[in-house]
């Protein structure tokens, strides 16, 4: 069904294809590139794109293409790990709050309200600033900023569907609450989780880039697109290419996630009818 829907939306298909290729490239990483991300060649500084260096070289003679690929590795793994974490946490929190209702719901949602009030970058900066910018801390910070939104969305949906007949029926058949939650509620909110996860992926990849740009994210020598962009600022006057490649990579990735996310939100909506354009 998804594939057929994709055939009808060329932009979404192109974005999905790009993301797939990016993931493959990131996973293949060191195997796909001729140089490592930190191999300096001080005779070949600031070269433009050549056959030997597809994206040129940077201020230390490092191959830009390898750095971009490795940066993809880092940015994507951090972003996707954070998305997985926050989706799981938000889904569990929201389902429990939405199903039980009452005092439990109230308490759980107060915590969510508290965290949602925090500006996201600020929270992330607070965590990495205080506890250090290790990869684990960055992922934890990103999870912390994103899970309340998912929890709220999931909870609203669970509240809407918890009185449906199939839930009643399951209960009448003697299903235990955990079984109802896992076998009936979660699959019926899954489409929301998927859409949210995709859109959050774009936000979190961007957030990681911002953190690295400011300096409290991925630390050198590990490349991250945000960090590469920051370094390129110094040489902007003479060598703008240093900025172009990581900026383009970041922007296109973020846009691709957004497009795929909006496509999925349209297609996975239970009211979607294939073949009909709204």
């Amino acid at each position, binding site marked *: 069904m998804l594939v057929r829907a994709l055939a009808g939306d060329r932009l979404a298909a192109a974005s999905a294809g790009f993301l797939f290729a990016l993931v493959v490239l990131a996973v293949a990483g060191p195997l796909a590139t001729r140089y490592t991300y930190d191999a300096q060649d001080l005779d070949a500084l600031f070269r433009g794109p050549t056959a030997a260096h597809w994206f040129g070289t940077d201020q230390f003679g490092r191959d830009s293409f390898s750095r971009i690929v490795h940066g993809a590795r880092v940015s994507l793994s951090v972003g996707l790990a954070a998305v997985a974490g926050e989706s799981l946490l938000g889904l569990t929190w929201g389902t429990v709050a939405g199903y039980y209702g009452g005092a439990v719901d109230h308490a759980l949602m107060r915590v969510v309200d508290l965290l949602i009030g925090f500006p996201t970058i600020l929270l992330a900066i607070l965590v990495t600033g205080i506890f250090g910018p290790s990869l684990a801390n960055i992922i934890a910070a990103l999870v912390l900023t994103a899970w309340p939104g998912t929890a709220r969305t999931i909870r609203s949906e669970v509240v809407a569907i918890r009185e449906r007949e199939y839930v009643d029926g399951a209960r009448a058949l003697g299903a235990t609450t955990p079984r109802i939650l896992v076998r009936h509620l979660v699959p019926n909110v899954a489409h929301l989780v998927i859409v949210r996860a995709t859109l959050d992926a774009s936000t979190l990849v961007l957030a990681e880039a911002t953190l690295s740009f400011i300096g409290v994210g991925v630390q050198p020598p590990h490349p991250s697109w945000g960090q590469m962009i920051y370094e390129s600022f110094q040489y902007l006057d003479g060598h703008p290419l240093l900025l172009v490649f990581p900026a383009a990579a970041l922007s296109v990735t*973020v846009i691709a996630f957004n497009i795929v996310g909006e496509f999925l939100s349209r297609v996975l909506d239970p009211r979607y009818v294939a073949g009909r354009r709204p």
Partner: protein
Amino acid sequence: MARYILYRLAMAVPLFLGAVLLIFVAGHLAPGDPVQTMLGDRYTPATAAVLRHQLGLDRPLTDQFLTYLWQLATLRLGTSYVNPGLRIGDLIGTALPVSLRLSALAVAVAALAGTALGTVAAAAPGRPLDRLIQFGVVLGLSVPSFVTAAALVYMFALRLHLLPVAGWGRPADYALPVAVLAVAPLAFITRIARSSVGQALLEDYVRTARSKGLRTPRVLFRHVLRNAALPVVTTIGMAFGTAIVGAFVVEVVFNVPGIARVAVNAIFQRDYAVLQATVLVYTALFSVVNLAVDVSYAYLNPRVRY
């Protein structure tokens, strides 16, 4: 109306206190010992104990938290541990107005331009201008602010030499930071304005006005904009929040002496007291902005009542 304001305030206070608690706990979990940092080379266990007692750091945590709350209430933010003699209140007092000015300018620009662009786009849906504006909105929302900053700096400062690259104080220095900061709010507001005006244009009273013979600009000004304003106003409030957060990148890139730069420097210097204070200020700002947005929405929308 007054009841709603009181209700909102009652909701906001516990949230703010919860945030303060979070920040307090985070500060205490920070690695490193402030007493050690302050004493440096003169550290001996005896001196440390005396200093710790003076600072009140040996009292139970609940005591410390209550003292912290009281100090906040009286606006005494303490002194920095890393740069002794630097009063945090002074630091924030000079930095905060800069950030606020920057954000306010950015939001003002975004609000005016966004409403104008959104209205123009809604007035001619599907046409090339509309498509162009929509594309601009997507770009504005997806392209990271530091990329926009770099592009604008490259274009206007380095190539065309129209604006300065860095510095602060002269009117020209404001141009690029405000422009970069305004991009995301502008995209938001344009999108909302376009959809809101678009909706309003479908209403019956517009058809009536048009059939009376009024031409589109007059229709827009006299009837539509007033009715379409509501979602836009709330978005402006949200846009202020976005601008406050976006200030982090802008202040780092353009070296603007605002609160975000104070916070970032505090992180690099491991000055947790300053970091705590800046996060607190941001949280307070955000609470106020959210409160203002909710209250303004209730004021403008007769259907929201408590």
